[in-house]
């Protein structure tokens, strides 16, 4: 109780109660996910089993859930396959990593699911808890035919933010700027062995694939399984969001051959030892679903394949291909090299994929990141160019295999535990009335810069930044299973600053100074604050809890999960 005394004193001393939230709506557009909500279902506390979809086949389902201590609930896919929400795993099929589900904290689950066909069993294409990979390309056993439902086994479960699509992966979207993002949600592929030197394949029917499976990208080098002479065929359904002229471009390495088919017609062909740099074709594609197919034939030599498109003035876009400026995570990569820990905190600077990439999804690299770990956590990563807390996790600290093995080309650290990814926008701003500032294109040209960090006796750092009219500091220390964060602002005169305490899809006040977050599932408790007030900024699909900090002011709060 004593620790709250300053806060109570503070509440009494202010003219306006600083913990009363002022809500600010911004005009920021929400990013298009390609998913839709489900009509007629009950979000919130469930008192009984609930059917989400009466029937389904291919599916991407994404929702948040929260269980009370000891509660048990299952998500049933096609009425048959049970995914335990309390254990974050399929029945009888251990996940890649065992993940603890903290009671009373919101969890984000995302599963893409491929229904069984005559030839193939049903498949969990990918499943993520809070963005951490649980399953990838996991076949299920029997055939099934039933609804998508949540079965309440015992206790209490709440659900929220339920979204879905009837495809097993991310489909095409139109982003807020009007750009058309074409993407085939899932590609079925077939791998064939070829006689070395085979120039072309015409009679596919006479051949038997040696491997069949699903993938999200034309990742030839990964899918060829080490073969030098082979063919790969990809089949998918492309949803075209708007009728337009689309110019497709295909590039293959010499001496590979590629063909691209739309609705059964060959539209692009590049092959053999031809010298043209790439094949081009402009197609008028109508809104709606089109069958697409790629045949890739490698008689030997170096493999490479990229398919891209141009539409309007968008510039070249990648089409389910591995090229492009962003980092793309492959499903493999199981070797780890763990940082050796001792009694002092370990401060590790590195690049970081942000947000943590999903398999075959593109991700940015943050380049000035410091991760701070001690013991079994909690640990955290900070972005020194924005001051933002990027992720928090418990368990092991850091895998540096991609930094210290060989040349360490990615220079990326990976958290060893199940990380919760936080908002990566700027930590500080000079105003809260407009959209909270995004990570800048040129971080070295803004008025925020890391100046120094200092270690205390225990080796824990305080980060010092220059910011606008003054300086800010940030100290984060583990406290039990959570983190305690203190932010200060120092400036001459009377300028004010604003700091983002937390950002999430939804922030709910549970008591004065206490907030429950969903997406990510954190709890925030303000312990000490001497500013004018807090505001909740809403826009772009996010809630942002923002605190005004006067010159020489501070805020201290707990982060629990």
């Amino acid at each position, binding site marked *: 109780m004593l620790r709250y005394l300053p806060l109570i004193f503070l509440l009494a001393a202010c003219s306006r109660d600083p913990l009363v939230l002022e809500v600010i709506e911004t005009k920021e557009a929400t990013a298009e996910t390609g998913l839709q909500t489900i009509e007629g279902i009950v979000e919130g506390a469930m008192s009984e089993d609930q059917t989400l979809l009466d029937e389904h086949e291919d599916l991407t389902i994404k929702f948040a859930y929260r269980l009370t201590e000891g509660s048990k609930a299952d998500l049933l896919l096609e009425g048959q396959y049970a995914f335990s929400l309390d254990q974050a795993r399929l029945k009888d099929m251990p996940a890649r990593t065992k993940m603890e589900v903290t009671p009373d904290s919101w969890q984000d689950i995302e599963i893409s699911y491929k229904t069984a066909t005559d030839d193939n069993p049903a498949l969990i294409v990918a499943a993520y808890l809070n963005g951490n990979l649980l399953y990838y390309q996991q076949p299920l056993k029997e055939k099934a035919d039933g609804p998508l439902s949540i079965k309440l086994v015992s206790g209490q479960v709440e659900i929220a933010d339920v979204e879905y699509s009837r495809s097993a992966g991310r489909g095409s979207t139109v982003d807020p700027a009007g750009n058309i993002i074409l993407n085939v949600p899932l590609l079925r592929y077939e791998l064939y062995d070829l006689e*070395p030197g085979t120039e072309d394949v015409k009679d596919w029917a006479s051949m038997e694939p040696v491997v069949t499976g699903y993938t999200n990208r034309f990742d030839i080098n990964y899918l060829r399984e080490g073969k030098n002479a082979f063919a790969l065929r990809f089949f998918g359904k492309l949803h075209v969001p708007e009728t337009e002229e689309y110019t497709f471009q295909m590039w293959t390495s010499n001496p590979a051959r590629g063909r691209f088919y739309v609705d059964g017609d060959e539209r692009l062909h590049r092959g053999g030892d031809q010298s043209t740099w790439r094949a081009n074709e402009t197609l008028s594609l109508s809104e709606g679903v089109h069958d697409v197919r790629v045949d890739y034939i490698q008689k*030997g030599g170096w493999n490479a394949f990229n398919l891209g498109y141009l539409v309007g003035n968008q510039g070249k876009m990648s089409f389910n291909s591995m090229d492009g400026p962003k980092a793309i995570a492959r499903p493999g990569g199981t070797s780890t090299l763990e940082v050796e820990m001792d009694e002092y905190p370990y401060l590790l*600077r590195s690049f970081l994929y942000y947000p943590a990439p999903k398999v075959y999804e593109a991700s940015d690299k943050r380049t000035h990141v410091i991760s701070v770990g001690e013991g079994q956590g909690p640990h955290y990563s900070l972005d020194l*160019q924005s001051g933002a807390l990027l992720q928090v996790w418990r368990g092991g600290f850091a895998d540096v295999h991609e930094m210290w093995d060989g040349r360490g080309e990615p220079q990326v650290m990976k958290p060893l535990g199940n990380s919760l990814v936080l908002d990566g926008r700027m930590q500080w701003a000079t105003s809260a009335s407009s959209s909270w500032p995004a990570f800048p294109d040129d971080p070295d040209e803004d008025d925020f810069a890391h100046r120094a960090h200092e270690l205390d006796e225990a080796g824990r750092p305080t980060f010092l930044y220059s910011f606008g009219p003054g300086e800010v500091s940030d100290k984060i220390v583990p406290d039990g299973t959570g983190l305690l964060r203190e932010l200060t602002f120092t400036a001459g005169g009377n300028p004010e600053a604003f700091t983002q305490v937390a950002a999430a899809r939804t922030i709910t006040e549970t008591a004065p100074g206490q907030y429950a977050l969903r997406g990510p599932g954190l709890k925030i408790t303000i312990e000490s604050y001497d500013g004018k007030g807090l505001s909740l900024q809403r826009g772009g699909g996010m809630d942002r809890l923002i605190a005004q900090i006067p010159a020489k002011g501070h805020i201290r709060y707990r982060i629990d999960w």
Partner: protein
Amino acid sequence: MRYLLSITAVLLCLSLSAQREDDYYKIEKVSIPKGVELEVGGMDFMADGRLAVCTRRGEIWLIGDLEKEASYVQFARGLHEPLGLAVRDGAIYVSQRGEVTKLEDTNGDDRADRFETVYELPLTGNYHEYHYGPLFRPDGSMMATMNVGWEGGGVSRVKWRGWMMRYDVDAKELKPYAAGLRSPAGFGTNAQGDIFVAENQGDWIGSGRITHLAEGDFAGHRESLVWADQPGSKVKTRLEDIHDDHKTMYAARKALGTVKLPAVWFPHGILGISTAAIITDRTEGGFGPFAGQMLVSDQGQSKIMRVSLEKVEGEYQGAVFPFREGFASGLLRMNFNKDNTLYAGQTARGWSATGGKEFALERLRWTGKVPFEMYQIKATENGLEVEFTQPVNPATVRASAFTIQNFTYLYRKAYGSPVVDIKDNAIRSATLLPDGKTVRLELAGFRPGFIYEVKLKNIRAADGTGLLHDFGYYTLNAIPGGGGGADAGADDTSEAMTGEYVAAKRPTEMPASWNGKVDTELLLESTPGMKFKQTFLTVKAGAKVRLTFRNPDDMQHNFLLTSGKKGNVVGKAAEGLGLKGLAEGYIPDMDEVLVHTRLVEPDTNDVIYFEAPKKPGLYEYICTVPGHYQSMRGVLKVE
């Protein structure tokens, strides 16, 4: 035919077996405790005599008791691949990937507790965006260099990649200083305090070299010029000025006037493959007879080269000589201790080095004996003057004791360059000057813009001592007096300049007798760290093979199939090829070589056709780019 005159360095070395580097300079090991991965990225001595070392894994170690069982204290850790360290006023400065950081220990417990960002650098996340330095200048400012990124070729996607930068500590301002750098892993000052930067072979960089950099200079790598018109830049060269049509840097300099020529070229494979640290011998004789000269280390060949410089027509040029080889790992950093020993910080992870160890810390100690060496080479109006460290036996001074050729490198976007336009220089006269130590050589075909290989045989000191090293390379950017020499200079576009090389053992067409059918398709790939990805391949005896050698690495590699367990024999022969090797893609002309690819550029491939040996057995294959064959090898099993 002109190559016939070239006698390989190996043969010459054999005839000089009486002289050993170890008699003059001894390598001593500094102990490293188990568990410390001392992959040296940078180092400097502290006021208390300890050596501060930063490692590629981000640690800083303070190493004391250097003469005995060395003591190690961890000062800091978790830095982002720091590749340079300097001690200044009790603080340690390091260049991390994203910034220069000042580290201080404010409570005296030998542990850094304050990390100050001196300045921050933008990055894209490309692994090749390395950052080196800082080097403090007498005025308190600091210099640092920054690699270009690598995307199958150099790229400068963010400011100021490919530049040397100067940071004004008082004004807290980072200013562009000079451009045109690719992978400037080391830089330092000469005895006069002028800054020299070492450069690694790559795109636009035909071979290793050192270049004097003054403010506003452009040292050759094109991509940095994307920022040349930005505020603060004094560089006059522009992107569009630089293209392959210049053929040579010398010609580009003639055409543009703004290209800074290397002061000294280091022939790739002969004197290094990856130049790194530059340090001047400021021991005033405490380290031997080369006071005031520069030493340049090499990462890949685990050795040190020595440089003598002179100023001709206002600019530096000079000679490079072998100095000391045999270090344990990749020699990235050098520092003199107060006792005039030279400390050598080493690492090889990801870029294997001749020494073979993953990392090492060693020191080089002068034994007090003066070797008989070429001390320096200087240019005259019609030739070269070679000064020796000791008086020369006049009877051994004759024209036939010298063999001189000159050559140059292509200036082009493609990776590296073969040796091109090799010409012999007939020696008109060789005269011992009155000082008894200097031989004046009058040369035919003396032309500026070329590198002169000077090889000696049977020259003896007055006391009968033979030479420790018998070759050196002088870079003739200008002839004293500004003469044009006997030739027009390295701007001709004759057939000699194309660098194309066609070989009998590189069959790139499928033999017609195969009727379009291949029995076996082999794919071989390079992988970072000078290795083949596939180290074991199998074929049937006599099979018709199409082999694709694909090189996704960021340096050149080749493939040579040997006639059995002949990897070492062929590898050594390739290393001894000298200039001829450079000109012909490191393929020794010997029966042990069955087939080979061309020198394959990064991100390209080469396809060859051959029939597998008829006799079952194991056939080694190797890459013969200098420094590679020890690690880059595999076995073809013929069944």
